[in-house]
């Protein structure tokens, strides 16, 4: 079966510019530096990595909010990388996004009803009456009440606001939803509710998710497969259970060892991998493996040539010369 979304060698560089009229490029931030993966229909792919590693940029490229520097994105077997105008607009019905910050992702001058009906109005869903009925349906699906229709965002809690954002994203019945850290701005007690809602909606509306997060336990809960990213590149990609039980890349191992264990006795005895401090310069030229400066396993070869992303076991890809223990 062909995947629903296929990302091939995606690259996004942000130029650092100086001067207003005569622009000089004084450097480049390689936010995404050659990333490939795919998402099957109905699947949830988790994308994890530390802040600044480019995971959000990938999401924004897929939704069309950023133009990739190079590479290709295929949706349903057609190249959507550089769509413009009408074609681009039509694609909005298929791919939607849920944002991280429920406070800045809702227009404060619009009511919840207006916000959720906007996609329906833009894509000419039907008469005002039909739109309103659909909006009320959607609000019910995401756990909002009818009387919330005419309230403004500032009258809602963070969790409720995120529900509005989710309702807006699924209003057009998209096939793929990019969830850009949808729970990281919420209280822990609310996170679970929103995650359960996402799972429920996935079943109900047959959605596929690209779930971007820095929270490994959240990703574990939702995803079928997980991709780990480090400074613009994938370092490991595997099925959920595989990745958590048998992490092969040292970065993944370090990330997983940072997740606290609820039992304090076990927590105290547990061995942890503590990494050396990270790179502050994302624009720098790497020699060899980009994780090598922080890696405790680094050998000479790691400094000379960057390893490829290799399929070490079935469906388990790692970018490391010395995977495993």
């Amino acid at each position: 079966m062909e995947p629903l979304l296929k990302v091939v060698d995606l690259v996004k560089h942000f130029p650092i510019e100086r001067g207003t009229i005569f622009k000089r490029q004084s450097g480049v931030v390689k936010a995404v530096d050659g990333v490939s993966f795919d998402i099957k229909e109905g699947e949830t792919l988790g994308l994890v990595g530390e802040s600044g590693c480019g995971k959000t940029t990938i999401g924004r490229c897929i939704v069309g909010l950023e133009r990739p520097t190079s590479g290709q994105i295929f949706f349903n077997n057609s190249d959507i990388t550089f769509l413009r105008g009408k074609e681009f607009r039509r694609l909005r019905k298929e791919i939607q996004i849920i944002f991280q910050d429920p406070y800045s992702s809702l227009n404060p001058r619009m009511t919840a009803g207006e916000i959720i009906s906007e996609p329906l109005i833009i894509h000419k869903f039907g008469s005002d009456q039909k739109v309103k009925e659909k909006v009320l349906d959607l609000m019910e699906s995401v756990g909002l009440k009818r009387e919330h229709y005419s309230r403004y965002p500032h009258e809602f809690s963070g969790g409720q606001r995120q529900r509005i954002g989710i309702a807006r994203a699924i209003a057009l019945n998209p096939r793929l939803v990019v969830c850009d850290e949808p729970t990281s701005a919420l209280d822990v007690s609310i996170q679970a509710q929103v995650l359960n809602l996402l799972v429920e909606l996935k079943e109900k509306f047959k959605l596929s998710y690209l779930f971007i997060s820095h929270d490994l336990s959240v990703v574990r809960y939702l995803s079928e497969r997980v991709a780990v990213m480090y400074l613009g590149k994938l370092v490991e990609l595997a099925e959920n259970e595989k990745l958590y039980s048998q992490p092969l890349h040292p970065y993944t191992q370090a990330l997983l060892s940072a997740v606290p264990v609820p039992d304090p006795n076990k927590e105290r005895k547990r061995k942890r991998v503590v990494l050396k401090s990270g790179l502050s310069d994302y624009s720098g030229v790497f020699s060899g493996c980009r994780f090598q400066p922080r890696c405790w396993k680094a050998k000479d070869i790691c400094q000379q040539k960057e390893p490829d992303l290799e399929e070490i076991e079935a469906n388990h890809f790692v970018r490391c010369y010395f995977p495993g223990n």
Partner: protein
Amino acid sequence: MEDALVKGEMIEKEVLTSTLWLDVWKRLIRNRLALLGLFLIVLVFLVALLADFIAPYDPIKINSQTMARDSLLSPSFRHLMGTDLLGRDVFSRIVYGARISLVVGLAAVLLMVIIGLFFGAIAGYYGGWLDSLLMRLADVFFAFPYVLGSIALISVLGFGIQNVILAIGILGWPSIARVFRSSVLQVKQSDYIAAARALGASDLRIILRHILPNAIAPVIVYATMSVGGAIIAEAALSFLGIGVQPPTPSWGYMLSESRNYIFTSPWLMIFPGLAILLTVLGFVLLGDGLRDALDPRLKE
């Protein structure tokens, strides 16, 4: 217990009906200076609207028979603010002058807001060379002294109240454009703009539905204060004799006429001056209060 319940519901209802603009209004009327400004503006508006009922005499007509007798009378109960050289009642002229000042002030600011919002939105939203071009154009307009620019424009356009409005509006747009541009730049970064783009909204829809309502506040403040500026500009132009033409009563022109009698008949200068001062003060105070009331950082 039941009492508390009822109370709880009432509070709930109040929260429900409170929209953002209602909050702004509430904060505004808590500010005494802003209230004074509002009061002054309402007063001038009422005077202008009801001029026909308030003014005791005709502001324009000169009665050649009584002109000599009524010329330059000092304030009295018959003529509250005295009379001018031609025997006309100064109070009546000031009352009718309010119309000119308000019409010119509001129309000129409306014009500059329309031009300013248009260019400011384009510059801020699209950025790049369009932004540079429009902002350099604004710089060119800034380089003209207000009065000099108006004189140049009016000498091309000709005399008349509509040309005064045009001149002030055309010369005033760059400030509005600047203010709006910077606030558009700020709003443009919000996720809800990205969300609207991800939904496939057109640029026009994004600008009108999402950016304008969220970026308009500083423009409202600036425009309110600009009304005062425009009234002063009209007065200055009329003072110079190229604004509103006599016999139409204009505060600026009345000041101009009073120059020769400053020492003998000071009321000719004092009352139009006071009228300008209080009206401008009203708009400035209201603008200042609006700025505080609209400031989201003060939001509880």
